[in-house]
């Protein structure tokens, strides 16, 4: 809400904002339901491989727009001095990297779920009297009963010297 608005104008602006946010929310719910096959006539969308990515991107875009509207118009960030808005908003950019890094990490956990479970089920072994680290040897974790544990990226065994 810009400072030059009259009282009547700013009142109208607020209620238009209510309509905007409500409309975006309804559109979001419609898209979400449609992408999962709940809307008659749009049931083909459920099961199409690229639909979740397209709808997901749209939903995230709509939500970011709602967030922008709330911060700049309802919280009046637009009329604050630039220094204040920069010190508040710039730290949020750190979250971009946090999202990329942790989602990548989560994906990795998912891909290695079977391997991790295999490791968790390995029986505890008696500790060696001499550390293999001192010997410069190689620790080998043997897969059980011919099960393929090593996926070629060195998960099954690793060289202590490295």
């Amino acid at each position: 809400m810009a400072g030059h608005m009259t009282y009547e104008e700013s009142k109208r602006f607020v209620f238009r904002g209510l309509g905007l946010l409500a409309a975006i929310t309804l559109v979001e719910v419609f898209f979400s339901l449609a992408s999962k096959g709940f809307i008659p006539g749009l049931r083909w969308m459920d099961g199409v491989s690229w639909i979740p990515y397209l709808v997901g991107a749209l939903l995230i875009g709509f939500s970011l727009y709602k967030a922008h509207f709330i911060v700049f118009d309802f919280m009046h960030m637009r009329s604050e001095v630039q220094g204040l808005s920069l010190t508040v908003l710039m730290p949020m950019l750190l979250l971009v990297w946090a999202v990329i890094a942790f989602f990548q990490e989560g994906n990795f956990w998912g891909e290695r779920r079977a391997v991790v479970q295999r490791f968790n089920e390995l029986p505890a072994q008696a500790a060696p009297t001499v550390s293999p680290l001192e010997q410069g040897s190689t620790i080998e974790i043997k897969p059980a009963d011919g099960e393929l544990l090593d996926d070629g990226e060195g998960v099954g065994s690793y060289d202590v010297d490295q």
Partner: protein
Amino acid sequence: MSTLIDNSHQTVDHSGEKATWDGAGKPFRVGYGKLMMWYFLVSDAFTFAGFLIAYGALRFSMPAWPVPDFVFRTLPFGLQEYFPGDIAPLIFVTIMSFVLIVSSVTMVRAVQEGERENKSGVVKWMLLTVLGGATFLGCQAWEWSNLIGHEHMSLTTNPFGTHLSDGYYLEDADGVAYGSTEEGQRFEAGDSYIIHKHDGEWQPRALVNEGQRPAANGAPMRESFGPKAFGALFFFITGFHGFHVFSGLVILTIIALNSASGQYAARRNGYEMVEKVGLYWHFVDLVWVFVFLVFYLL
């Protein structure tokens, strides 16, 4: 803001800089309390972001995740029966979101009336905001009690699962074996299910997954529970948000009473206190935008 003190004259004369460093000027030309409210909200945003990113990382790590349209599809008083297929996916939570948006708008109106030094307007719109927030909390209480009491989801048990491959059920939800026909008992990969609980006992249905060998000992395979993290994340994150709403209601009520008593009118600063609590209240709405996105929409 017409009520802000204009400090521009201080930089004109030679002693202006000294006066600023003595505390004459306001950093970023806002009051101390309002500036600190913004920085508190920055830190709170990082807290919520940490929770939501943890949710995302765990969700990405699971082979399947409960479909929100399946989990959140009931309404109070059995009203979902008036919807096609007796389910109302996401309807209740859409109403909750709408209530919170409306309460955010009434808060903006309260701040606007404060700028005009209109005491009765401030009190009226703040009380409407309290009403909206309380309605939201009531809705959340129903949603939780439905999930806990009716569907038996807990912090450590998640009865909502998703099939990873095609197959068919051997018995229905009451443990009664199906006849020879396979009609109505087939499921496909990606289908959702919920494990029911009767008389304190979980009743996972017996099933056969296509392309899998039957178990050697003859015992049939049964439905497995969904990702354990789902319940814990849901109750923790929506609970943390609900606690913010509750704190907001307490603060709003106090500020509304103070406004009604004329305390802020005497300050002649355009009800800046109302503006500060308004910032907090909008932030609660802002967080809900993202909670709504990740738990219900995606």
